[in-house]
């Protein structure tokens, strides 16, 4: 009964959907029959083209007013954003639609963790945007990530995630640590293990109920973001268990997980948000896009207490691309929109809104974070810190299964050590088994 009720609900829903779809399809086909096919995007009779843009998380275009601005500049365009919160839900959906050749949005965002898979397996489903723009505007490594071997660029870079350390000045002070951002940066410069050492110092006099860092996984991700080799070499071979970058990052994470300095939270989980609000951890490796998040989640209590220092190594974590699927009905208009959204001026506007860091260096000179944000982070020269990091990030090669491999190491391996008290060797073996399963070995 339980299933049959569920199924009958689903059936009812499906019937409704089927009825609606037939109606819509009929509507569309009659539209194109009478020669106004350009307007068939469901925009009604106003003669406007509706462009859809599929994104995940918070891209900030809407928040920064960019859609409205574009629609003002182009009276014939109407923009509709379809947001899926999580990338792990968003991407499989996009993959199936791309291959079906139907149902894609006119513009489709691609996360850096998926860009290699897109480049290697879906390149023929995307328009070559390299022909449309001056490619030299983008950071070399950013452009390279979205470019196929034969030189086709399937997506234009939006933001990148240069790394810094965000820390609670007030807590550091109580623990008797240095609070000056330059001196702190000098203390841990060059090696994440040194950052861990600062953590050990913190824990000796830690204010009640606080830990040094949010999680071991965040240290792992941050450290790996600055490594020369991740899980794949530049020819696409899997080298994860021989990679020096993985080894070093793992060791740093283990140093955190086996000591008492981690608040043992899972990033982007509700308790993590609460950790920001209650100030239960004193520092977090923060890519640029996390700045806005911290400000929002820490709230008034954190105002002026947070500060930003340069990370031990220049690293990148996250960032995205915008691509135009060939299945789209309005490719010409979509390309124009993507060009405009990813242009340095617009990237600077998103930075001003939520500190998503541009992937186009020419924007760096004019970057101004919102006055609120600067005040919130103790007037730290955020732009300078992130720009310095951005310029020295090594070129990294990603692979098709980058995300599941990463998840095996962080959500299985590291988590077992951090939360279940397993030994680092046990954690490594568990991650290894998991990755074997991922790779089908």
């Amino acid at each position, binding site marked *: *009964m*339980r*299933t049959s009720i569920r*199924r009958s609900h*689903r*059936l009812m829903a*499906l*019937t409704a959907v*089927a009825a609606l779809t037939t109606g819509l399809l009929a509507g569309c086909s009659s539209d194109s029959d009478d020669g106004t096919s350009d307007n068939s995007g469901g925009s009604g009779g106003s003669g406007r083209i509706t462009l859809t843009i599929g994104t995940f998380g918070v891209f900030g275009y809407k928040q920064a007013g960019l859609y409205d601005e574009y629609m003002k500049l182009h009276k014939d365009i109407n923009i509709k954003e379809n947001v899926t919160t999580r990338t*792990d839900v968003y991407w*499989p959906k996009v*993959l*199936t639609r791309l*291959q079906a050749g139907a149902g894609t949005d006119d513009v489709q965002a691609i996360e850096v963790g998926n860009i290699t*898979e897109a480049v290697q*397996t*879906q390149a023929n489903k995307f328009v070559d945007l390299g022909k449309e723009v001056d490619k030299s505007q983008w950071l070399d490594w950013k452009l390279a990530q979205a470019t196929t071997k034969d030189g086709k660029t399937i997506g234009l870079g939006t933001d990148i995630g240069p790394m810094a350390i965000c820390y609670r000045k007030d807590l550091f002070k109580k623990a008797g640590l240095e609070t000056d951002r330059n001196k702190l940066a000098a203390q841990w410069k060059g090696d994440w293990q040194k950052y861990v050492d600062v953590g050990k110092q913190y824990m000796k006099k830690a204010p009640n109920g606080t830990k040094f860092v949010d999680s071991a996984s965040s240290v792992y991700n941050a450290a790996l973001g600055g490594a020369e080799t991740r899980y794949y070499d530049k020819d696409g071979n899997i080298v994860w268990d021989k990679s020096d970058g993985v080894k070093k990052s793992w060791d740093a994470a283990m140093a955190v997980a086996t000591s008492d300095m981690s608040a*043992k939270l*899972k*990033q*982007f*989980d*509700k*308790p993590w948000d*609460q950790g920001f609000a209650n100030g*239960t951890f004193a520092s977090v490796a923060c890519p640029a896009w996390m700045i806005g998040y911290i400000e929002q989640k820490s709230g008034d209590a954190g105002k002026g207490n947070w500060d930003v220092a340069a990370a031990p190594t220049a690293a990148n974590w996250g960032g995205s691309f915008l691509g135009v699927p060939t299945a789209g009905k309005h490719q010409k208009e979509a390309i124009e929109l993507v060009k405009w959204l990813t242009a340095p001026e617009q990237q600077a506007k998103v930075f001003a809104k939520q500190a998503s860091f541009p992937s186009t260096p020419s924007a760096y000179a004019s970057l101004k974070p919102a006055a609120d944000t600067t005040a919130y982070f103790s007037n730290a020269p955020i732009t300078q810190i992130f720009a310095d990091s951005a310029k020295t990030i090594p070129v990294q090669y990603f692979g*098709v*299964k980058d*995300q*599941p491999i990463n*998840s095996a190491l962080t*959500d*299985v391996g590291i*988590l*077992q050590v951090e*939360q*279940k008290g397993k030994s680092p060797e046990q954690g490594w073996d*568990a991650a290894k*088994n998991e990755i074997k*399963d*991922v790779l*089908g070995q």
Partner: protein
Amino acid sequence: MSSSKQALAHPASSAEAASGTSPGAARGARGRGAPAAPDSWRSRLYRWDMKASPYAFVAPFFILFGAFSLVPLLYTAWYSLHDVQLSALDHQTWAGLDNYKNLLSSDFFWNALKNTLSIGVISTVPQLLAALALAHLLNYKLRGSTMWRVVMLTPYATSVAAATLVFTLLYSWDGGMVNWVLHFFGVDPVNWRESDWGSQFAVSSIVIWRWTGYNALIYLAAMQAIPADLYESAAIDGANRWQQFRHVTIPQLRPTILFTVVVSTIGATQLFGEPLLFGGVSGSKGGSEHQYQTLGLYMYDQGWIIGNLGKASAIAWSMFLILLIIAAVNLLLTRRLRKSQ
């Protein structure tokens, strides 16, 4: 006893029969009554209408069932015999039974099967017992009985997502209400999400909360169909309330209990939403040691996170086969039950 059993069974079957035949009968009567000359187009139309209409009426279900259940089912079977990656759906290479062999030798699969069974037991048994007790209480004359019934059904009406999110907060490691209460009894905080039995218990509690009221209503309906004279004669024989419950209510409910057991088992085998959302970020892993990764989660993880659709399809079919086995056992049990009566 046997006569009452028949009484219980009769209304149902006769109602079915009535609903099954009466529309046709009515239509037939009207058709015969129509004053039309034989072989006229009108009478042919009538006859055609008589024959075809029933099929036309049931067709929507079968068309939808075919399009959205049967075809996917068969296509999944086809996929399960191939190596299919999510990023290359059109490049399927024949793999024979490799995916299934892979599963049989995979610790992850057996672990997921084990979790599915243990969570199934932890959630189904208390749930049905509690439902039985609740139904028994509601079967007494109560003030505002409709209200109680509605209240019982509310958890069922809430969405899995909403319920799970609230439970996740309750079970949160630090600052969660459950640990806060435990603290008063001097129990150390439990890491509900990562501990082995704790996580399974937490997931089960969500299932129990959602489905107990629903099952209680089914039991209640069956209880109200039990003739009152059975209780009267039991009372005359000197049976107390508990004895009446044990020796009158339970035997009378037997077919209903079996039904709920089967339905709950099917539900437990397909358990997916609760553990996925309970896990939060990367919930499809079902915990760092997969301590609450059910078969449904393992399938989702393989198919949509890792992108190995061939293997995911093999898991889907394995689940289907397991359900078939359960159905077969159920059939045997029902037969035996009928014979024994």
